[in-house]
């Protein structure tokens, strides 16, 4: 890093550096170094300012932060002085010092709550128990049951004793004796034809269908039993008991025998999980197929080499590729939320999201494939006078089919994973089930089972799809010749089945419902700025109930509120009456909030008044009238009036950043910090795992191979669980909507992905130096340190940056399903249909994701250059 001639005195550099980080370097001519120092200083400053502005940060924390930043400030000035002397100290120390304040803020801002982590373990333990010992199979039971009617109470002409019981019926039968009884009376239940020597449960079936246990018995060797039960007094709704106590109600008793058959079958949990998982499979399969079909023609329009001819073809190319890039940047989960609004909750919404995202992703891959094809055949066919379409069909298509099929298989893999989480936002499939189960403490074991089944589906899928893609890439056929028609048939059959299972309903899709148009209009107008507001409060009394001698018009008076007045259209009212609250003379654009202050001290925020301007006119100004219904509480303290308080908000003052924009900016920094924390800790955890999961490091001993296998299995299992699912787990564990569960989930993702990448880098090292050092007598650790680590560090760092980028992207998703950060606010705004605010968050996400993309690409480039320039 030679920066050309150095000049300036060290003292000057020191002073300038202390004044403004980076300035000292600039003065000494160390421009490149200065730029990096300034960038680091800007990063520190942004984080510090952000933290200082966050609400609820104690002053002491700010002081500590200043203290943490000071060493960097001083060190960079000293560094500038050193540069002025012509020295060139290593950059690492400076980098570490800059990292200190950033990590300090990161650690505090992500609110790690280790105490909660430990304390709540008992709460989530059933989840992990379910994961460890999933409830997959259960004994198959044969059931025998019979039911008999009981009237409560008896009607006037009803028989008071039961018909006799048949002696050897073909199916179980019971009689209730007497067949009618008053509530609370006793009924004898006799049954016959049941399995011998079996436990019988007797249930009471109430008039509205509710079941309750009423008694138990055992059958004798002849399959006969007798039990006495009481007609539950509350089995008839209170209203009916009071109003018509003598009308007979239809109730029943049921006797039930459950016997194990000795066979085992899928448990109730497993059957439920499988049926939802079927939906996941169907919608991912169909989404992949449809995406491939739509992407193919688009890809031709998005291939530079095919669209180079005229200005307008180039235009089409730009349009198509640009469109694909934008759509690809929107996460499928976010799309799914939009489609849920469009086509309602359910698999179809998930399908739409996966198709749209898939078209963009596959389209880009297809286009790039087309751009990479051998131009020879294209030229040859063009030389033969072929048209554009003919060239595409005969010169291009045959060349791209194998790689394209590979990409489709790959996409299928991705879609299945996404299919497991799309339900978390209402898109159908297993995610929908899981998000419900995991919220209920008593269903946590079942949720664990669902997670287990998901891993069981995805882990092998990883291997299968990898093997298939490898075969395709090598140009090997997937099987003997006859498999081809079989595959075609299977795909067609799957498509038909998926179409049904995914509940495709094109009618919901088109015509576009009005609400979608509204949403789009609102999304197009992000709420970026707002005006400050003047608030004025006034309240009017309402006497409830109306005392004797008052009529409705008594006691009415107008109270001034701002420039206008507040009045009720009556001075007293009774419970259930309507009261008109009239605000007149308001300036245009005024918004009104009404609050009831009851005499007993309770309150009710009641109405957010219309904000539209221009009602009424002339000297009256805007008039707002809200009708309110008087409720019970108002009459609670007779004699003391209830107050109706109005708050009028009038926009005033200069434009300023809107609240959603301020939140978005703040949460974006938080999101980046979350990603940074997760990347750092995930990477640190990944390092030891990587060594354990590297075949060449673990050697060929039995223990070594076993550890290697276990580490690999662990990594691929964690990778099989989508980040959004991990968030569900951690949010259940340490609290919904906070950054901490999001960071934990990202750490899981990071350590699994980096563990794999790191270990592959380890396996790829040149064995030569290892051999040389071993030959020179180095021990295992020395070999690791001097022959292995130096070879992997550059690629590890590159992977690390790469994953930070991924984590920023993921942390938006993670927030959507309960992990804090910008995504959490986005989901809140979307769920409450505040689309103009959601639009701000979306813009922020797109911006930050694109920016991180660029920055991480730059950094990796730098790193690659640095690696190639430095001697080995």
């Amino acid at each position, binding site marked *: 890093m030679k920066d050309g001639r150095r000049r300036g005195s060290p003292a000057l550099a020191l002073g300038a550096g202390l004044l403004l980080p980076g300035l000292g370097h600039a003065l000494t001519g160390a421009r490149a170094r200065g730029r990096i120092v300034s960038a680091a200083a800007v990063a520190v400053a942004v984080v510090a300012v952000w933290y200082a502005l966050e609400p609820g940060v104690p002053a002491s924390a700010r002081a500590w932060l200043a203290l943490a930043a000071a060493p960097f400030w001083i060190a960079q000035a000293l560094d500038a002085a050193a540069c002025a002397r012509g020295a060139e100290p290593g950059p690492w120390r400076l980098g570490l010092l800059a990292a200190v304040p950033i990590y300090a803020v990161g650690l505090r801002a992500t609110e790690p709550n280790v105490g909660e982590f430990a304390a709540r373990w008992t709460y989530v333990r059933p989840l992990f128990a379910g994961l460890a010992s999933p409830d997959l199979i259960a004994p198959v039971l044969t059931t025998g049951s019979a039911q008999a009617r009981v009237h409560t109470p008896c009607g006037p002409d009803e028989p008071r004793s039961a018909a006799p019981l048949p002696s050897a019926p073909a199916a179980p039968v019971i009689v209730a004796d007497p067949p009618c009884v008053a509530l609370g009376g006793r009924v004898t239940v006799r049954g016959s034809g049941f399995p011998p020597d079996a436990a019988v449960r007797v249930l009471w079936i109430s008039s509205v269908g509710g079941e309750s246990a009423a008694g138990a018995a055992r059958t004798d060797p002849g399959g006969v039993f007798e039990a006495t039960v009481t007609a539950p007094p509350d089995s008839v709704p209170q209203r009916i008991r009071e109003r018509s106590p003598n009308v007979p109600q239809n109730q029943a008793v049921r006797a039930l025998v459950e016997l194990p058959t000795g066979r085992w079958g899928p448990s109730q949990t497993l059957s439920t999980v499988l049926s939802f998982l079927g939906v996941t499979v169907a919608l991912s399969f169909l989404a992949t197929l449809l995406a491939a079909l739509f992407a193919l023609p688009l890809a031709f329009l998005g291939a530079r080499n095919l669209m180079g001819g005229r200005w307008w073809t180039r235009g089409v190319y730009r349009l198509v590729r640009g469109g694909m890039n934008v759509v690809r940047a929107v996460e499928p989960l976010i799309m799914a939320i939009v489609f849920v609004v469009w086509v309602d909750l359910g698999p179809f919404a998930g399908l739409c999201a996966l198709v749209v995202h898939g078209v963009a992703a596959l389209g880009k891959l297809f286009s790039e494939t087309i751009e990479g094809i051998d131009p020879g055949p294209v030229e*040859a066919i063009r030389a033969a006078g072929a048209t554009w379409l003919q060239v595409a069909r*005969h010169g291009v298509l045959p060349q791209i089919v194998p790689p394209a099929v590979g990409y489709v298989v790959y996409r299928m893999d991705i879609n299945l994973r996404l299919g497991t989480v799309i339900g978390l936002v209402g898109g159908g499939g297993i995610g929908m089930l899981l998000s419900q189960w995991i919220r209920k403490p008593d269903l946590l074991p079942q949720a664990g089972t669902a997670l287990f089944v998901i891993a069981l589906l995805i882990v092998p899928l990883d291997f299968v799809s990898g093997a298939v893609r490898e075969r395709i890439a090598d140009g090997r056929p997937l099987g003997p010749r006859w498999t081809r028609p079989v595959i075609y048939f299977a795909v067609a059959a799957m498509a038909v089945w998926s179409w049904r299972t995914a509940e495709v309903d094109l009618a919901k899709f088109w015509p576009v419902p009005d609400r979608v148009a509204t949403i789009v209009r609102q999304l197009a107008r992000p709420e970026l700025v707002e005006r400050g507001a003047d608030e004025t409060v006034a309240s009017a009394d309402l006497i409830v109930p109306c005392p004797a001698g008052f009529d409705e018009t008594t006691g009415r008076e107008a109270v001034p509120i701002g420039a206008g007045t507040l009045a009720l259209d009556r001075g007293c009212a009774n419970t259930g009456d309507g009261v008109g609250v009239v605000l007149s003379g308001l300036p245009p654009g005024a918004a009104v909030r009404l609050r009831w202050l009851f005499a007993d001290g309770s309150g009710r925020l009641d109405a957010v008044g219309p904000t539209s301007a221009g009602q009424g006119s002339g000297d009256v100004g805007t008039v707002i009238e809200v009708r309110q219904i008087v409720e019970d509480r108002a009459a609670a303290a007779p004699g003391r009036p209830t107050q109706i308080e109005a708050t009028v908000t009038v926009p005033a003052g200069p434009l300023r950043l809107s609240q959603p924009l301020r939140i978005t900016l703040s949460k974006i920094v938080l999101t980046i910090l979350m990603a940074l924390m997760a990347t750092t800790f995930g990477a640190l955890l990944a390092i030891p795992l990587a060594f354990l999961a590297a075949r060449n490091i673990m050697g060929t001993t039995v223990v070594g191979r076993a550890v290697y296998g276990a580490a690999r299995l662990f990594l691929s299992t964690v990778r099989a669980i989508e980040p959004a699912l991990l968030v569900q787990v951690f949010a259940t564990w340490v609290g919904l909507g906070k950054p901490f569960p999001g960071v934990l989930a990202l750490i899981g993702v990071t350590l699994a992905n980096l563990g794999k990448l790191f270990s592959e880098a380890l396996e790829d090292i040149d064995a030569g130096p290892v051999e040389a050092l071993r030959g020179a007598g180095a021990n295992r650790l020395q070999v690791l340190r001097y022959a292995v680590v130096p070879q992997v560090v550059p690629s590890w760092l590159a992977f690390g940056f790469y994953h930070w980028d991924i984590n920023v992207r993921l942390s938006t998703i993670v927030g959507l399903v309960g992990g804090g950060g910008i995504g959490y606010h986005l989901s809140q705004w979307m769920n409450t249909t505040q689309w103009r605010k959601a639009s701000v968050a979306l813009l922020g996400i797109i911006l930050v994701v694109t920016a991180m993309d660029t920055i991480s690409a730059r950094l990796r480039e730098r790193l690659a250059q640095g690696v190639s320039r430095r001697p080995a």
Partner: protein
Amino acid sequence: MLDIRHLSKVYPDGTKGLDDVTFSVAPGEFVVIIGLSGSGKSTLLRCINRLIEPSSGQVVLDGVDVTAAKPGALRAIRRDIGMIFQQFNLVKRSSVLTNVLTGRLGSVATLPSVLGIWSAADRATALANLELVGIAAKADSRADALSGGQQQRVGIARALMQNPKLILADEPVASLDPATSHTVLDYLRTLNTERGVTVLCSLHFLSLAREYGTRIIALKDGRLMFDGLPRDIDEARFKAIYGEDAVEVEIR
């Protein structure tokens, strides 16, 4: 039948690929273009059917100005010009037959051809042409399963599908061993003599040029250096074309 008039090509980076080249070709000739690597042979051949747009000058084929043709007309012209490439330019993953059939694309309707539907007559012609180049048995093999020489013969068969008046062959044998080179060039000569197809063929080796060409055109740095009969290339001319140190190599 082919008139090249003051043809020049300047590449965007300023390289003069062709510099004011003028010559004409009579029907039935087998013209061999020779020259060092980078002398402009490929540029010349590709300018003739406008795979490369010439910068200036004219190409006139049977009285039709190729250089001025509109896209539709250009396709019609290309239909009559077969082209053979050094790298064969076959679609590797398609069958031999399909590759040969693609030679017909300039003449068949777009829709069926895009759907992969070919007339029985086209199929028959394709098989006949494969027969002609001696690899009919390989019709159903994938193109990349063939040897280099066989692939080039597929290339020739493909060009034959156009029933061309003129064949442009850009170093058709440069990727082949000597024996195979002769087979391939023999096919070209057969076409030339028996079907009366005019051939314009660039070759690297003078010895091959002498053997197969009825006429030789030499290029150097994009300029025409020689235009005459093979036997007229003597030692001095050889050195002028290939440089002082060059030695003539025999290909047998």
